């Protein structure tokens, strides 16, 4: 269970998040929706320890995350897939996967986990020893998702995973995400510009506008609210 209370973040004089309170439950995908500048990315970066907030609390399964270094939060089982980046370009595909398991697995278990990841993303298995810099955008997104999943996280933070992907690949990605979440204790927080596809895959949703929570409810309820959709989600 991820619980965020009164979270405020500012970049200098600009308030990116204003006393945001929300929660995300395990076994479900919680979509964070909103226009550009709503504070979606800042929210994820604060949870994973990349941004230091002004005030508030971020608790995950009873652990207070605020004040910890990003690498320590990652080791608590929080995998953050940042927007449009997150692969190490100069390492091979296999080494990228290996990197995320160095601190949590033995040699044999690691090799198994790597093979399992290649089964999940068969396309990547042909590129094992290629540098990540030679992959296409979609392949990189698969790699970074594979790297996020390989350490068996309890909380997965995804920032615009569909960015730059073909609609078909996006659909596959979302289906994969749903399969990975349902019936498990994995908590997924999904930030998406594409509200329609995000709402179709998620159980809960939170709408942010200019750093404030406008509404937070079940995804079906938000998808049914045509006024809200028009105003904040653009469809």
């Amino acid at each position, binding site marked *: 269970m991820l619980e965020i209370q009164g979270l405020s973040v500012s970049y200098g004089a600009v308030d990116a998040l204003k006393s945001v309170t929300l929660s995300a439950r395990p076994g479900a995908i919680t979509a964070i929706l909103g226009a550009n500048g709503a504070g979606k990315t800042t929210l994820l970066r604060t949870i*994973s*320890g*990349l941004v230091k907030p002004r005030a508030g609390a971020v608790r995950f399964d009873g652990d207070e995350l605020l004040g910890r*270094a*990003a*690498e320590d939060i*990652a*080791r608590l089982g929080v*995998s*953050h*897939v*940042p927007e449009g*980046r*997150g*692969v*190490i*370009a*100069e*390492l091979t595909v296999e*080494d990228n996967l*290996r*990197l*995320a398991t*160095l*601190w*949590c697995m033995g040699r044999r278990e690691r090799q198994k986990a790597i093979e399992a990841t290649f089964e999940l993303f068969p396309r990547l298995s042909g590129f094992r*020893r*290629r*540098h990540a*810099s*030679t992959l296409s955008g979609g392949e990189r997104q698969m790699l970074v998702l594979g*790297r996020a999943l390989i*350490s068996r996280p309890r909380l997965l933070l995804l920032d615009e995973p569909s960015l730059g992907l073909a609609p078909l690949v996006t659909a596959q990605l979302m289906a994969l995400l749903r399969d990975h979440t349902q019936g498990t204790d994995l908590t997924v927080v999904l930030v998406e510009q594409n509200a329609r596809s995000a709402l179709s895959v998620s159980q809960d949703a939170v709408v942010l506008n200019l750093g404030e929570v406008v509404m937070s409810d079940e995804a079906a309820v938000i998808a049914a609210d045509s006024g809200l959709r028009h105003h904040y989600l653009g469809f």
Partner: protein
Amino acid sequence: MTPPVPSGSWPRAPWVRRLRLPTQPLARHLVLALCGAAILYAVTSSLSPYNDFEVGEIALYVIALAGLSLLTGLNGQISLGHGAFMAVGAYSAALLMTHTHLNLLIELVAAIGAAGLLGLVIGIPATRLKGPYLAGMTLLLALALPPIADKWSTTFGGDQGLTTTVPSAPGSINPEEWLAWIQIVGALITLVLLANLLRSRYGRSFRAVRDDEIAASLAGIHVARTKVIAFVISAACAGLAGAFLGLSTGVVNTGEFPLTLSIQLLAAMVLGGTGTLMGMWWGAVLLVYLPQWSTSLSGDFNLGSGASAYLATIIFGVVLIVVMIAAPTGIQGGLRWAWRRVWSLRSGPGDGTPTVSRHPA
């Protein structure tokens, strides 16, 4: 573009295939080191004592350059102060030699430890600095350290410095060859250890941190700790190299570790091939021989002593520019690229493992 050559038009003889190096990293590196040792043994025993002395100097510079290559090439931290770490290693070993009568091995370990400790002290604040700021801080170290030796001249011997003694050679081996051998063994052990380190989790972490600190930290890599470890290892290498330099020159004083040494180390590392270990041999050869060539060159052209003093620096600069234009990845990178070209011409496309050229072809 090269015309495609039918695959298998140059069948490799079976013995070539059998000569493949072992795939296990440790075994591979040990085999390479033993081959290197055999070649260098043959070379040193056939050379004059003065040439042996030079081979030893090359070996000691390889140690310092390999450490710098790891720090800059693989971890992305720049250091303009590696001469200072060499000085710390040299003075530590020399102090132990003057005041105690310990085994040379213990003195060398002390030199490694002292330089590594300073590396820790410098490495921790260095994690907060990047690029030019880090260069500035390490530059300051190279400038600030020599005056300390001058200030406490009773301990550090002032301008005269401290004298070092090489343990006497066994049997009828001449002392220069013996010293060269100590230094060569030191260099080969250092290279094997570093090569294995780079193939380990540490090597991957170093490169991950260099490429993208945020991505590395999100993957659970301790960024600051990784950078400090790289700094300590690099400084420790420089410390060993410094102790060896003290042995070569027979005396340790501040004049041996000027600011230009730090800058030349960095330039030689770039020339050899940033991030490579084997490339450091080229860099070290240039460090040892360029000053000599420039001296003889200025003699040939009857240049005055003022001009000849600068000639080495000028040649170093020119070589650096030429190499950077012809082979941006340094001499080793250029050789690797040429080797791959030859290999792909011989075996034709589609044969062997696909490699990604990191060299703009």
